């Protein structure tokens, strides 16, 4: 699987994981959707200025996700004020998307396939997030991004070949 698709899968799981968790645990009000979307887009925007090592952004985003979801897993329903406290975690998880594009787009021969593959992966991640949560519950939302993060951090065939730059 090419890297942008894996990245999209990971980001789809993260974004929809946050959305489902907050609408379930905090509030299904429209403001929840708007704040999650806003925080996610802000994180992606900031990420455009962070084209450094992806490994750090993957781990940072994953840590934010685990902290937020583990806390929500321990509380069925909480007060809406907690939403504000959880927004930085969402923005942190979204940094990776912007950072990735800033790293690969400038030198790509064609940019369209990169955006398309990332979108395809995001679509799969969104589907997986909803199906996984509905059929397997909150533990799925907590743990599935660990697997996709491992996929992102795993060395690709190209990076394993002699003389290749580390990802």
């Amino acid at each position: 699987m090419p890297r942008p698709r894996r990245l999209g899968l990971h980001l789809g799981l993260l974004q929809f994981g946050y959305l489902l968790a907050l609408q379930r645990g905090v509030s299904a009000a429209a403001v929840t959707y708007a704040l999650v979307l806003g925080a996610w887009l802000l994180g992606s925007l900031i990420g455009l200025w962070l084209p450094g090592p992806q490994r750090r952004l993957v781990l940072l985003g994953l840590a934010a996700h685990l902290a937020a979801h583990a806390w929500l897993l321990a509380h069925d329903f909480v007060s809406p004020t907690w939403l504000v406290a959880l927004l930085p975690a969402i923005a942190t998880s979204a940094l990776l998307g912007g950072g990735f594009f800033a790293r690969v787009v400038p030198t790509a021969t064609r940019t369209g396939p990169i955006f398309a593959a990332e979108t395809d992966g995001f679509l799969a991640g969104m589907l997986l997030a909803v199906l996984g949560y509905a059929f397997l519950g909150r533990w799925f939302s907590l743990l599935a991004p660990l697997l996709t993060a491992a996929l992102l951090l795993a060395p690709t065939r190209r990076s394993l070949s002699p003389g290749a730059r580390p990802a």
Partner: protein
Amino acid sequence: MPLSPRRLALVLGLVGVGFGGAQQLLLREFAALLYGEEVVLLLVACVALAAASLGYRLGDRWTPRTHARLLLLALLVQFAWPAAPRWSVAGLCLLRGGTGPELLLVLLVFAFALTSPFAVFLPALLSSETDPSRRLAALRWGYGAELLGFFLGSALALLLGTEPQMRLAVHFTGLAALACLVLGRARGLACTALAGLALALGPPLAAAGADAVYQHKHRLPGARVIASADSPYQRIDIVDSARRGRALYLDGLRDLDTGELDILNHYLGRVPARLLHPARAVVLGNGTLSLVPELAALSGHLHSVELDPIVVAAGTRFFTDPAALADLRNWQLHLADGKTFLAATDLRFDLIVVDLPSPLTLGEAYLHTREFYALCRARLTPSGVLAVQLSGRIGAPTRTPARLLASLRAEFPDVMVLDSELGDRAFAYASDALPFTPAALRSMAHPDEQSLEILHGQTLTDRIAEAVPLTLDDLDLVLRRGAERLLDRHL
């Protein structure tokens, strides 16, 4: 030919506004046409993303000339929104005499035509810049502007949901501005003229085709949509027809009509309130507020909690006399999510009435889970009662009513069920120890009731023996039911 950074940001900012707006228009329109179950919402989101992916893939393949031609074609589809998909659906239903798979295909074409053109711009503009550092700058400013525009476009579409004509005007204006920037003055002006014509040629463009959908897809001869608005949660249609009288539709699904409203209110609110005379009661849902005047008269203090202010506005305009609400001194309305309200309140209630739609979306299903019923129990006084409508008559253990009952039984020691033929649904009353008997409940039957079954104790346990409770970690019912209904209707 690369654009200057300012022009690039402006073009992609407008693309983002159009993209965000178009996605919201698509979601609401298709949810109303295909019915707003979670499966449908998911399907629409998938189609929008697939359309974006196609646009990205083709963006830097096309010549600017091809791009311009296709953009013009796509704008024509946009300017025919929402009449074109509505008339197509109504026409196909009329031809077939019902719904079929062709409906999904036609809507798929509309979805691609509506959203994929926006995704073409980003790769086309970035790939035209060959110097890596300049391309990085273009990405930062251009893609950043598109993300901001997307947020703005989505927010505008959501905020203007109650003014559908204004929303279309804003969307068309943004598209016309984009056309002027991208296609040059002559074609841009032609697009502006087209957008103006589309708006001016109403009868209100936003309402065009709505009656036809109810007449031919819902099979309500002579149906007329007398009011329609989009809230951030759903499309709210008030429909008058000879067959159903006045009915409230949420995302195309009939929520209630005037005929069944009285029966629903009777068993859900009137009966428990007459048996209990609660000092403090709360109604979750019941956006029409039709329960409020009577329940307030039977309670010391009444709270109503409804998430959607547009449903409340529609309720007071079409279903409940505002004068009956104006003089109530013991009633308080809270615009909030039911679970959030209960989680945050210190109040304890003698009666909690849950008047919510069937769990066809995850948002609705959370309020039918075992954990939610546990929260309700924690907010009841020791002899307090929770009243729930079960969205159907008790049937197979895998169906919604049995699963909701299993959730209630898992949390409450004492549950009684009233299965009404007249209401075509069952109602449950749950408590630590119900302060009324089955005979007392039976004596409160609706005057028009033909056949009433009361289930309690072992009889009830036996009827739902194999039903699995709905919990926050087991919401498969939402997707299973949604998929069944979607397939039944279209395949």
